[in-house]
């Protein structure tokens, strides 16, 4: 259950979005409808951009293991956004353990 990610320390919001449009599929946490749409749209955009960069890196360095890109993290001053597959989470830097959050997102996306 995606909602259970909110039980992890420091996780403020989580969302699952549609791959084709970036529209929110499920959103949990303290986010307005507008902010949830902004978050998932930018998460889809960021995912596509990261995948493109990973594909290029693989071509440049001839090294396996970089693609397909699985996820991304944007580290902010006080908050961080983590993306994995079609899941995205907003976390509080002071509280959250990023490894724990990324693992939980990966697990959730595996079962979705």
């Amino acid at each position, binding site marked *: 259950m995606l909602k259970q990610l909110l039980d992890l320390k420091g996780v403020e919001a989580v969302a699952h979005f549609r791959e084709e449009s970036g529209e929110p599929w499920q959103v949990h946490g303290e986010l307005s409808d507008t902010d949830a749409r902004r978050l998932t749209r930018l998460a889809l955009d960021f995912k596509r951009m990261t995948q493109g*960069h990973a594909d*290029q*890196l693989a*071509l*440049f*360095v001839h090294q396996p293991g970089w693609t397909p890109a699985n996820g991304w993290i944007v580290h902010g001053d006080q908050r961080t956004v983590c993306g994995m597959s079609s899941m995205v989470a907003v976390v509080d830097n002071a509280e959250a353990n990023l490894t724990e959050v990324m693992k939980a997102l990966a697990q959730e996306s595996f079962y979705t």
Partner: protein
Amino acid sequence: MSDLKTLSSMPGTVAAFQFDEEGRLEDAVITDDVVIDRDTLDLLGHLCVANMAIGAMQARGWEGMSDVKGFYPIQGFTFVGLDWSAVSRGRQGVVLSNDQADFDAAYKALAG
């Protein structure tokens, strides 16, 4: 550096602007404040810096693995929108109407 006032006087130009190494707006001359404001120029400054960095990574990677040369170092970036474009070079840029834009002249003028 080019004079922002001179840059802003080119046909079809609605703004000329200058940003720091992070993309933050430092100075601007806006000739049509209906279509552009300082906050948007600040975002465009960040956009230009982000894309020049991406371009530098790509040019570096590409030229490192093939005989293709001539891109690195990246000197500028142009963003072509539906009706408006932003042409940047170094730490300066202009916003142009696509209908009246002379991309060559704008890019040359930005050389200072």
